[in-house]
């Protein structure tokens, strides 16, 4: 493969490219689906090929091919060159790459239990057991589970990234993921639904740690109880305690995305949108002093794990919000060059035929000092939201809505009865400014972040501790 990568870069150089970057990527994925207790087709997918990205007269061109022959790789280089040259005529600001130091390494995430050692029958049996226990758990409460889809994905991502200015990074990262959509139904109470993802990097041991049958049984119990007993949510001004699932989502949506430098430059304006932050927003206060949001690709076992990004830059922890103040943006080499900083290793591509763009990895709120009991004890009347279904945020990442699923009323420091669908519809600054206490726990949840055009879904973790919001207005 190395020779094809070299060929791609050298040929682009011989055509006149100022910069060339070639990437071989192979993603081999196996998916097992259980639909309402029955297996669907087992699905294997292999995507592999080479992409080449070039700079010509300050314009970026990209081409990919899944044909790994010398002729077709050269043709891809030539196409990337032609695409860039054609675009150069409506370029005003020339693109350049920053002078970050670039890696020359090989890295591999080892699997303790290899995916090959677990056959499809075993995976299906695991899901069937989880489904059976969920149905039985719901039935004990006279609740039905009329629909439930569960999926286990295992995949290997192998990459070789090289650039004309010296990057040479090989990586092999296995990942496993689970997702579920469950519907609980009761003739008098209607329906409630729960969707969530789990994921991590490593081998089958990740899946074993999830203890899926017990976990899904518990989810069925909770969903049934929500359906049967959750009452009307209070609205108006109140204190709210958010669980890690929601805190992680909020970090991702209202801190991670606005910090993407390509959004700040308007690159995503017609798709996922822009951001309320500007190039000069470093130092802007957006939350209370307790708010520290980071994005860290280097977390062992994380779903968004990588050590070098897809431009060959070493990954590191990024402090996006420090003590409530915007501290750092997420950069690739292109945006870093515009901002006059160094890339912090945020370039990721979801497949061989996608160009690297600025992405998050594992975004979370850093823990504070409080136990969950301490967070609760100072709340006279309030709401505790543990999980969610509906959410969205505007394309400037400023107005967002989260609708709780598992939620409770709090009275005099104690968790009381379940409530249904509390709505938190607030601005980014309004939300982060209301944080008055941060828990010392820390949990992560997997997600697939969507960005780019064509859409690039990439694995990420989102996470955080419990937090307390003081005096927020519920209802939207």
């Amino acid at each position, binding site marked *: 493969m190395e020779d094809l990568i070299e060929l791609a870069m050298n040929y682009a150089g011989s055509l006149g490219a100022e910069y060339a970057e070639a990437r071989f990527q192979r993603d081999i994925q196996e998916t097992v*689906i259980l*639909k*309402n207790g*029955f*297996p669907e*087709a*087992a*699905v*294997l997918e292999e995507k592999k090929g080479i992409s080449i990205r070039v700079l010509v007269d300050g*314009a*970026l*061109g*990209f*081409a*990919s091919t*899944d*044909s790994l022959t010398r002729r*077709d790789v050269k043709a*891809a280089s030539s196409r*990337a060159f*032609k*695409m860039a040259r*054609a*675009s150069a*005529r*409506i*370029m*005003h*600001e020339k693109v350049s790459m920053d002078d970050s130091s670039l890696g020359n390494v090989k890295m591999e995430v080892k699997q303790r239990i290899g995916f090959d050692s677990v*056959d*499809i*029958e075993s995976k299906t049996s695991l899901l069937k057991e989880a489904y059976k226990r969920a149905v039985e758990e719901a039935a004990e409460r006279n609740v039905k589970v*009329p*629909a*439930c889809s569960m999926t286990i994905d295992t995949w290997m991502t192998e990459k070789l990234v090289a650039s004309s200015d010296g990057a040479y990074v090989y990586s092999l990262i296995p990942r496993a993921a689970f997702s579920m*959509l*469950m*519907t609980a139904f009761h003739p008098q109470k209607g*329906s409630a*639904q729960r969707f969530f993802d789990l994921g991590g990097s490593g081998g089958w041991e990740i899946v074993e740690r999830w203890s899926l049958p017990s976990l899904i049984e518990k989810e069925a119990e909770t969903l049934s109880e929500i359906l049967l007993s959750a009452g009307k949510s209070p609205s108006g001004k109140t204190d709210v305690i958010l669980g890690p699932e929601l805190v992680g989502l909020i970090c991702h949506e209202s801190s991670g995305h606005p910090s993407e430098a390509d959004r700040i430059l308007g*690159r995503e*304006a*017609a798709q*996922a949108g822009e951001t309320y932050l500007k190039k000069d927003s470093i130092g802007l206060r957006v939350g209370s002093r307790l708010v520290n949001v980071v994005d860290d690709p280097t977390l062992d076992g994380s779903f968004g794990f990588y050590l070098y990004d897809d431009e060959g830059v070493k990954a590191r922890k990024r402090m996006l919000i420090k003590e409530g103040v915007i501290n750092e943006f997420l950069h690739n080499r292109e945006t870093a060059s515009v901002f006059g900083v160094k890339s912090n290793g945020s370039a990721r591509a979801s497949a061989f035929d996608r160009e690297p763009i600025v992405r998050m990895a594992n975004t979370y709120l850093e823990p504070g000092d409080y136990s969950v009991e301490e967070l609760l004890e100072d709340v006279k009347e309030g709401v505790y939201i543990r999980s969610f279904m*509906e959410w*969205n945020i*505007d*394309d*400037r990442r400023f*107005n967002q*809505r989260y*609708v709780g699923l598992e939620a409770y009323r709090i009275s005099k420091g104690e968790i009381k009865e379940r409530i249904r669908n509390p709505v938190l*519809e*607030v601005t980014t600054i*309004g939300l982060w400014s209301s944080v008055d206490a941060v828990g010392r726990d820390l949990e992560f949840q997997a997600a697939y972040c969507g960005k780019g*055009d064509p859409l690039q879904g990439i694995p990420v973790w989102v996470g955080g501790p419990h937090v307390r919001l003081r005096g*927020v*207005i*519920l209802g*939207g």
Partner: protein
Amino acid sequence: MKKDEAASYIVDLALRRGATDAVANIHDRQHIMIRFSNNEVTISKFYDELTVDIFLMIKRRRAATTIPFSSTRSLEKTVERLIKIARMTPPSELYAPLPEGPFSYDPKLLRGSKVSLNPDKLVGYVEEAINAALKEGAKKVAGTLNAFVERTVLATSGNVYASQERGALDISVRAFTSDISSGHFVSISGDEDEFNPSEAGRIAGEIAAAASNPKLGEPGRFTALLGPLVFADLISQVGILSSAFLVDIGQSFLVDKVGSQVACEKLSLIDDPTVAGSYGARAFDDEGVPTRRNVIIERGVLKRYLHNSMTAKKYGVETTGNAGLISPHPWNLIVEPGEKSFEDLLAEIDRGIYVTNDWYLRYQNYRTGDFSTIPRDGIFLIRDGSIESSVRELRISDNMLRILRNIRDLSRTRRWIKWWEVDVPTLTPYAVIEDLNFTKSTM
């Protein structure tokens, strides 16, 4: 091995190795995407891909794969591996043999229109769109242009061997007059002669100019005039969630609704990939079944779900030619037009809101249809039949079935819509919705 021979070879091999049914679908696709922002191209991309989808069944045991098309030996190894996996896979709920051909297809749908992949010509389209938006007063313009040609060769164990060509163009243009004032529009076409990037740019620019200096909107229930981008987003949800697979897993508000009045009588929704020259036109589905015009909603009544042979067997009906080997899906959605002009619809609204675009639609509960989505770009207050002012920062928080029932009117003018938010090509009018719920941030 040549591409045209490979599909049948794979199917024959799978049958020889013990499959009861097999499909091989070879896709040869060239695709150019040009992305632009701040009035300039940010990256131009060329994708050249040749892949093969293989699906096989050993009665109720099923396996599927997508791999790059490569050597004969590699394809053979893949088939053998897939057979092994299918044998190990526990049996599915039921077995439905693949539909038995041979079928005859509409020749007009088998031949794709000619679409140029000349980079200079395509960059020229981008220039046209940007200049048209700037002429209307936009300060900066962003978007995406796509052009593709593809050839599909399909063989199945149901005596199907067929190939079709497709080609299409689309452009999505977002124009800004300020950080908080923008407009968006698109042009999509399966026929290069009808592709109109200038018009997309012009309309985006017009909306952005009209949306200047927006004030914060107020929440409440309003009569809403939804532009084609918004109504396409909502109505494509109806089309997508009419997939019998999604109904089966509870990911649809159409569960148990066939035969029921789910919408106002003025709404009829059809999935029609048989319109030659349209963006989503195609001759056959992934099982080789000829596509057909499927009425999903007729005068407000849900007539059917969309099926492949597997879901059709489960529901005791015939396939609708919408396979997806695992999940059926719509190809080319069409909303029947109303009788009034846009101006007539506007004139009949005393107090309302005109929404020109939306994105980020998420469900609280798929089964009930409770959801919210975020209006973006031009949002306008309507007073006494005229646009009064521009507003911002509102959210549509309502229920899909309620919205469908609250359709008051549809325009006779329709637009084809497809962009980042709306994946299925959809021909849609403007729509007036009674009593639509708008919310906003509380702090």
